[in-house]
């Protein structure tokens, strides 16, 4: 069944339909095998089923009387034929179809197919459109037939209007897919649960601090105080979304993280690749690496200040350090994760050691590298704040620390929340960039593995 679905997914008309519809179509599909030379159907026979070519070679000849511009063609694996079964009006085969080589096909009942597409409110229409385009484009049908090609589901005898009439009629583009996912997400309980989560947290804060004034909570800045301060044009403690200072702190922190992250990536990825690739290199370097890695960032602060002058470089160094270890380690794991059969295959095909590195090790470890980069941005923010609290000027960590010493409690919370938002955004950006750059990986996930 799964295999049938995967096959269907590869045909033009069924690429766009929703998973449930695909399930349904797979369920009504029957697998059949024809021998070389066998006739699948002949013109004039009643047409009930639509076919999908799974393997083999099939010749398709439209009855010359119909005067289609393309009347003889060889069908390709994945082609859909037998579409006479979904034409409007009399359902009669318009073509002779026979196997040049043994062929496997899926047979799908035309009426039930339309039924299923009709049930697919979002994509049924788009699928049908893509289907009809395919039919008209591939065969250049004369008006007598092309007029009967159904272009909208509502014409096929149902009164319900599909919700998305203006849905892009072509195959699933990245945009429709994204919109589809967004729609799915909104329809799932996730966003509402998320809101409930936030509401609970804020409610707890408000209640404990401002309403109940519980013993250990009463000194904390309350929800309303913080929100008022944050959005005040003239903030009591000097920092809100209307002050330039606020953005300067954000900017300085982002700049530091960006520099540290880029440096860590530029050095960590190559180091990780070599660690994973060369056994001897690893024997020299890895023990040192493993000894330094668990040292907490705060323990590096004194050395960082001694080693680097000024207030900027020590902070960047601290931020860099944690990112670097995360990136290098994940990259190394990525290299180790590569199945030996890939390197062996490359080797058998004539690749030398360097080519194996370039063409197998590097792309093969990318999934782990990108996971590493996501972790890397996370720890970059973590160690940035540690660095900014001890050394440096400006930056969100600095804000949090000085606001504490200067008893500007609401500003502490503003700094923390901003840190959360900015940190989340940068991580999301790395994730999106990673997914974009690794399309094969994305496809694999989209198709649910092999």
């Amino acid at each position, binding site marked *: 069944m799964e295999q049938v679905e995967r096959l269907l997914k590869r045909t033009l008309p069924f690429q766009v339909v929703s998973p449930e519809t695909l399930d349904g179509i797979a369920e009504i599909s029957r697998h059949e095998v024809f021998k070389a030379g066998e006739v699948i159907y002949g013109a004039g026979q009643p047409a009930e089923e639509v076919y999908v070519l799974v393997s083999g070679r099939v010749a398709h000849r439209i009855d010359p009387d119909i005067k289609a511009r393309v009347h003889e063609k060889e069908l390709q694996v994945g082609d859909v034929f037998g579409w006479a079964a979904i034409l409007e009006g009399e359902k009669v085969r318009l073509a002779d179809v026979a196997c040049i080589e043994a062929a496997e096909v899926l047979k799908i009942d035309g009426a039930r197919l339309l039924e299923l597409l009709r049930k697919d409110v979002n994509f049924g229409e788009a699928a049908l459109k893509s289907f009809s385009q395919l039919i008209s484009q591939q065969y250049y049908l004369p008006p007598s037939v092309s007029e009967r090609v159904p272009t909208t589901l509502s014409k096929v005898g149902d009164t319900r209007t599909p919700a998305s009439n203006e849905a892009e009629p072509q195959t699933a583009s990245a945009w429709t897919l994204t919109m589809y996912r967004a729609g799915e997400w909104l329809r799932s309980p996730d966003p509402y649960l998320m809101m409930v989560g936030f509401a609970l947290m804020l409610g707890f804060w408000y209640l404990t601090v401002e309403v109940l004034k519980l013993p250990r909570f009463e000194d904390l800045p309350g929800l309303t105080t913080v929100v008022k301060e944050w959005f005040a044009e003239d903030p009591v403690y000097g920092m809100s979304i209307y002050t330039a200072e606020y953005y300067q702190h954000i900017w300085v922190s982002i700049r530091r993280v960006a520099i540290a992250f880029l440096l860590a990536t530029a050095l960590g990825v190559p180091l990780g690749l070599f660690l994973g690739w060369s056994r001897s290199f690893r024997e020299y370097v890895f023990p040192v690496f493993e000894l330094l890695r668990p040292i907490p960032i705060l323990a590096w602060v004194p050395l960082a200040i001694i080693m680097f002058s000024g207030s900027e470089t020590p902070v960047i160094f601290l931020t860099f350090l944690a990112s670097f270890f995360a990136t290098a380690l994940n990259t190394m794991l990525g290299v180790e994760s590569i199945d030996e059969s890939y390197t062996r295959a490359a080797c*058998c095909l004539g690749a030398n050691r360097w080519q194996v590195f370039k063409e197998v090790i590097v792309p093969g470890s990318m999934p782990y590298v990108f996971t590493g980069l996501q972790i890397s941005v996370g720890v970059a923010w973590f160690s940035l704040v540690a660095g900014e609290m001890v050394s440096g000027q400006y930056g969100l960590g600095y804000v949090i620390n000085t606001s504490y010493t200067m008893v500007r409690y609401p500003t502490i919370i503003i700094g923390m929340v901003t840190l959360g938002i900015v940190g989340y955004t940068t991580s999301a950006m790395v994730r999106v960039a990673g997914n974009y750059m690794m399309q094969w990986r994305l496809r*694999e996930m989209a198709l649910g593995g092999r």
Partner: protein
Amino acid sequence: MASAQHGAMAPITSKIAISAGEMIVSNVCKSYGTGLFEKKVVKDCSFNVERGKLTVMIGPSGCGKSTLIKLLAGFEKPTTGNILLNGKPVTGPGRDRLVVFQESALFPWMTSYDNIMYGPIARGEDDKKARDLAEFLLDKVGLRDFRSKYPMQLSGGMQRRAELARAMINNPEVMILDEPFRGLDAMSKELMWEYYSALYEESRRTTFFVTTDIDEALFLADRLIIMSNIPTRVRATIEVDIPRPRKLADFFLGDRANEVKMTALSLLHEEAMRSFAGGSKAAADFVESYARRSQRA
């Protein structure tokens, strides 16, 4: 109907100059570990992979066939004995042999086309000739429309065909295939047999083909080597002197085919029973599938 239009496709030999090699395996032993932990996998194995013939090796699973292939490929060295390719000892992996390992897979980060072109590109032979050949093979294996798809987007059968094309685009003297049709359902498997045997009949490249499926072995083989259970050695060699081109439709109706099949099955059955006594799971599976097959035969 329509057959004139699609006429005969040019045979593969018109595109590739076939240079056939031959391999001689003599008295090869292979064991892993030493002392108490020594595990003998291959025990005194001798056979030839003859020039221009399709030699099929069959044996119960887990008997050591893949281990032998690693030896032929040069990724591992025999403990004793030697392996010659065109009279010269095999010392390591080489371009003269193309090995498709049992677990070898298409590179998931490359499209089918890039996968197929990998060999020529890696060797710096990415010229017009190679690209033409790639087009030709894409057609041959019916993947023309899937050239820019990634392996994950192909069905199991398509992946196997792409793997075959990736191997065939190179011009090795010996082609070594380890269960290339593993994991396919019965239907696609039979299609692949017909398909592959037609390809082989066009090129007649020296081929060493390992399988656990007796029907597959018989249908494809010029010579059948039956292996014993682990530690494996050659149990019998049968010349499958059934003329080519062969067609699956009537192949198993022939007397000679069934005669060979019965001989092979009884030998394999003996091997399976022998290790079954030892409680091997693989052997148990084999006995079971044997029972099913002999009912069918």
